[in-house]
């Protein structure tokens, strides 16, 4: 046999690295890693789906950067150019938009499953908080990316969204100017959003993601609450590698297919170019994941007992969001194995609330 056949070469390469960086330790760690198998195991895949979609975002985002121009005069035209002239430009942009939406969706599902399985409890508080950070960054990615094509809908959505920031007492005005790069949404806003979207947010996201994953590796997967009193022999586990990983891989394939179907058959619209001196178009709506908040703000009257209706709405969402984020703090530690019903009901209420107002946002007027 040839001394340089590929298998031997790979082995030699592996040995070379292993000798220096002790890869064997890493592999023995991966061999030991396991995932509990029970009725909720399916929810364990959604973090991985979000991770896949984030990777898709990074790749397609870098590709779009080759042609996109982040200025008021050129942004819309460059996106149009990507859609019409660049080979497969329409596909890359459509995948980027669809994948963004699916990513937010899977992050949502991931968060709710963690909430209902109470996986945020000690000792996993920091995994929850880094997860919340990643969720907020996903929103920030969505919000800033939405403006980049510089079309009408995005322009007004950004006006409204940033104006809401301005409602926050004391610091609101400052942040409004900081975000917009001035008093109004202009080309200055576009430049800032572009920079945030392609440099600042990806950097922060990567750091938080690394922490999030390291925490999970250090602590292992959450076991269901009623397992704590069970003997080890009754706990059904599957090895992470290769069993869980291969299953995740199949799910990834399915997700990539869904993504391809959506991107090809429902290519993302570009709309009309933003005009700073044209009235807001009919049916302006933010991205679906902001829709429930948008709908509530829309339905609140201008004045509510002494305070401004929209301020009241923002205040309520602020308090609600904070309660949600701080759940590992306020959740009354119930004895091991007992479910905290109140927590479950609260979660179900939040989901129903979000679904109802999202539907209203879609179907009203």
């Amino acid at each position, binding site marked *: 046999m040839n001394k340089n056949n590929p298998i031997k070469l790979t082995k030699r390469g592996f040995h070379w690295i292993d000798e220096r960086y002790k890869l064997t330790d890493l592999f023995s760690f991966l061999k030991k890693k396991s995932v509990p198998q029970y009725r909720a195991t399916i929810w364990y895949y959604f973090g991985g789906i979000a991770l896949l979609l984030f990777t898709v975002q990074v790749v397609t985002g870098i590709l779009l950067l080759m042609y996109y121009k982040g200025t008021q005069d050129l942004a819309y035209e460059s996106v149009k150019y990507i859609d019409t002239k660049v080979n497969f430009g329409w596909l890359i942009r459509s995948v980027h938009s669809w994948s963004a939406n699916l990513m937010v969706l899977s992050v949502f599902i991931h968060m709710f499953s963690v909430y209902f399985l109470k996986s945020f409890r000690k000792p996993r508080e920091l995994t929850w908080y880094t997860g919340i950070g990643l969720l907020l960054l996903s929103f920030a990615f969505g919000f800033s990316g939405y403006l980049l094509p510089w079309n009408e809908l995005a322009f*007004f959505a950004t*006006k*409204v969204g*940033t*104006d*809401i920031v301005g409602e926050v007492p004391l610091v609101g005005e400052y942040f409004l*100017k*900081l975000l*917009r*790069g*001035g*008093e*109004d*949404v202009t080309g*200055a806003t576009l430049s800032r959003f572009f920079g945030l979207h392609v440099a600042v947010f990806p950097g922060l996201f990567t750091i938080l993601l690394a922490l999030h994953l390291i925490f999970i590796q250090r602590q292992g997967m959450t076991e269901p609450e009623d397992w704590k009193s069970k003997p080890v022999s009754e706990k059904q586990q599957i090895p992470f590698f290769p069993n869980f990983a291969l299953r995740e891989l199949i799910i990834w394939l399915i997700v990539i297919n869904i993504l391809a179907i959506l991107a090809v058959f429902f290519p993302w619209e570009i709309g009309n170019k933003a005009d*700073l*001196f*044209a*009235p*807001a*178009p*009919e*049916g*302006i709506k933010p991205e679906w994941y902001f829709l429930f908040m948008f709908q509530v*703000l*829309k339905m*609140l*009257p*201008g*004045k509510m007992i002494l305070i*401004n*209706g*929209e301020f009241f709405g923002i205040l309520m969402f602020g308090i609600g969001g904070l309660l949600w984020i701080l759940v590992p703090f306020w959740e009354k530690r119930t004895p091991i194995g007992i479910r905290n019903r109140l927590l479950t009901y609260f979660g179900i209420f939040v989901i129903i609330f979000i679904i109802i107002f999202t539907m209203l946002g879609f179907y009203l*007027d």
Partner: protein
Amino acid sequence: MADKKTSEGKSRRDFLSILLSGGFFAWFIALLYPIYNFLEPPGEEEVKISHIDIGKVEDLEKDTGKIIKFGNKPVLVLRRSNGEYAAFGAICTHLDCIVQYRKDYGQIYCACHNGRYDLNGKNVSGPPPAPLQKFGVSIKGENVIVFEETK
């Protein structure tokens, strides 16, 4: 070397540590100060105009409205069905969208959140918390002049 306490109970080590941490703190502030200020956008060049000629009286049909550029602000000029002119700042007082005149409602309308104002700019329904900013209109000969009303 052992710390020698002075009469006030402070050692030389304490003094040095205050000096160093204070110095570090000052250095840190000096680092942040330009960044903080860099991010604050320079004051916009306010396009100082007091009035603008928007053309002939007959240019705008009765019962219609249009958005004009008043410096860098959008202003809604509308002509009521009786031929009278009126002008308002076109920025919705709710969340900053740009309003429009809707003939079918006979009202000024904001499409973002269904805010409505009557033809005097007063908020009449929906979420807007305040009336639109009023602008003055005067007819000079054939021409319509829109001007900012002094408060």
